[in-house]
């Protein structure tokens, strides 16, 4: 195993406890949500039909059929996704700052490893990407089980069965699990670019401290401007792009922004970093 993979493995190991907590939180909250929402619907149906003498047709007319979208759109389902996203976003900063400010100064050891310092940068970025992809994989794996549980709890005549592809195209799920491979790659390339830009901003701050904070803000603003420039130009109709042209341009600019982030980081890590 080369040093890059060892470092990726090491970074993942350091995040393991928090990561397992996020997985547990997602599983517990989402399955609880399926149970709570399903049973509450069934309980209301039983109450209206058997205690208040409402016909099944009347109940369905009034309340609609239960479907999984109601659960997928609930806080039970969305909260763990939001919490995980927030934790990972915070970890983008923590993965660097911890090495400077924890009880140990592990950054000394990392920078003295007999490997390119850019390897450390890529190992940290890859660890973040793998953590995100791991949580996405978890969601894809547990979704069929959640659907089965929903079908088990709600009688067939009270529910509307929706294919899993339709669930994946719903709200937040459509963003985190895009419908096509191309969209998936584009979304996560954009995410990786964001991680690289934030890492570079962190390195600016670590190299130049207060001045670096200012430089980091300027740098982030410049990167965002470059990336969204075609979309802005198209929106205010200065230039009209065909959708394919716009996507191609965004891909090229995304790669330019990512390349610039890596190049600047390499320079900072090699020549300017201070511990």
């Amino acid at each position, binding site marked *: 195993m080369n040093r890059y993979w060892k470092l990726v493995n090491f970074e993942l190991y*350091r995040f393991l406890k928090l990561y397992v907590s996020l997985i547990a939180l997602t599983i517990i909250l989402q399955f609880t949500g399926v149970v709570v929402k399903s049973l509450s619907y069934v309980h209301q149906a039983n109450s209206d039909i058997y205690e208040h003498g409402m016909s099944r047709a009347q109940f369905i007319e009034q309340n609609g059929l239960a479907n999984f979208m109601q659960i997928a759109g609930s806080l039970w389902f969305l909260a763990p996704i939001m919490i995980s996203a927030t934790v990972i976003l915070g970890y983008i900063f923590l993965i660097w700052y911890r090495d400077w400010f924890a*009880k140990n*100064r*592990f950054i000394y050891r990392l920078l*003295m490893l*007999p490997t390119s310092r850019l390897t450390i940068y890529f190992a940290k970025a890859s660890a973040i990407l793998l953590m995100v992809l791991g949580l996405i994989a978890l969601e894809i794996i547990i979704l069929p089980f959640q659907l089965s549980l929903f079908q088990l709890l709600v009688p067939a005549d009270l529910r509307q069965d929706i294919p899993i592809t339709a669930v994946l195209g719903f709200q937040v799920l459509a963003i985190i699990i895009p419908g096509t491979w191309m969209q998936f790659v584009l979304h996560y390339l954009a995410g990786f670019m964001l991680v690289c830009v934030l890492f570079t901003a962190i390195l600016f701050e670590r190299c130049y401290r207060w001045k670096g904070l200012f430089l980091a803000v300027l740098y982030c603003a410049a990167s965002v401007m470059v990336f969204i420039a075609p979309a802005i130009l198209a929106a205010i109709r200065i230039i009209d792009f065909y959708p394919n042209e716009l996507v191609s341009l965004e891909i090229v600019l995304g790669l330019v922004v990512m390349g610039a982030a890596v190049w600047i980081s390499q320079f900072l890590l090699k020549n300017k970093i201070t511990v």
Partner: protein
Amino acid sequence: MIEVQNISKRFGRKQVLKEVSFTANKGEITCLIGINGVGKTTTLKAIMNLTPINSGKIFIDQEVIQKDTYEKITFIPDANIMPTWMTIREACDFMKDYYKNWNQQRADDLMRFFKLNETDRITELSKGNTAKVNLMLGLSLDVDYVLMDEPFSGIDIFSREQIAEVVTSHLIEDRGVVITTHEINDIEHLIDKVVLLDNGVVLKEFTTEEVRLTEGKSVMDVMREVYQP
């Protein structure tokens, strides 16, 4: 040879190093001496490219430091630089994973000598044992040069004796050593060369033999002359 050529370093308005130059040869122990804040640690960090310098040049065996150089030079700082959740064994495994020149036999010998328990977590270690672990991790690399920052700082007399013994037995095997310390008495007999720093400049550079033989003074005497006018 480590060659430090006219290096200057400024932190904000404060000039920490001004045109500092010295050399440290293999097989010699060079001691950077000075009161607090004169730039000793900054010099070591600059040699390891852990802090950028504003001007000047540093060469290790005629080469500017690069990734492979870390296989021939090691820095032993005065604080723990391994994650505190690690056990001593895990810290050794980490080093073994990344450094081709890790010497497990020496690590085991040093652990035995220092009476370190490999299952102890770094977070549980006393300051003295942390220094010993630092020393064990640094000296278990088969390198040509060792930089040590205040290895005796805040450590009890018995640990100091143990560390001084290790410095004597393990460091002088053809290695070039640069050491910073206040506790000059502990290692004065080991030092070959002294670089006296004050306010970021080199006040004096001399071999201990030279002052002993020609002036009949110890390093401590020279320090007193410089720092207690």
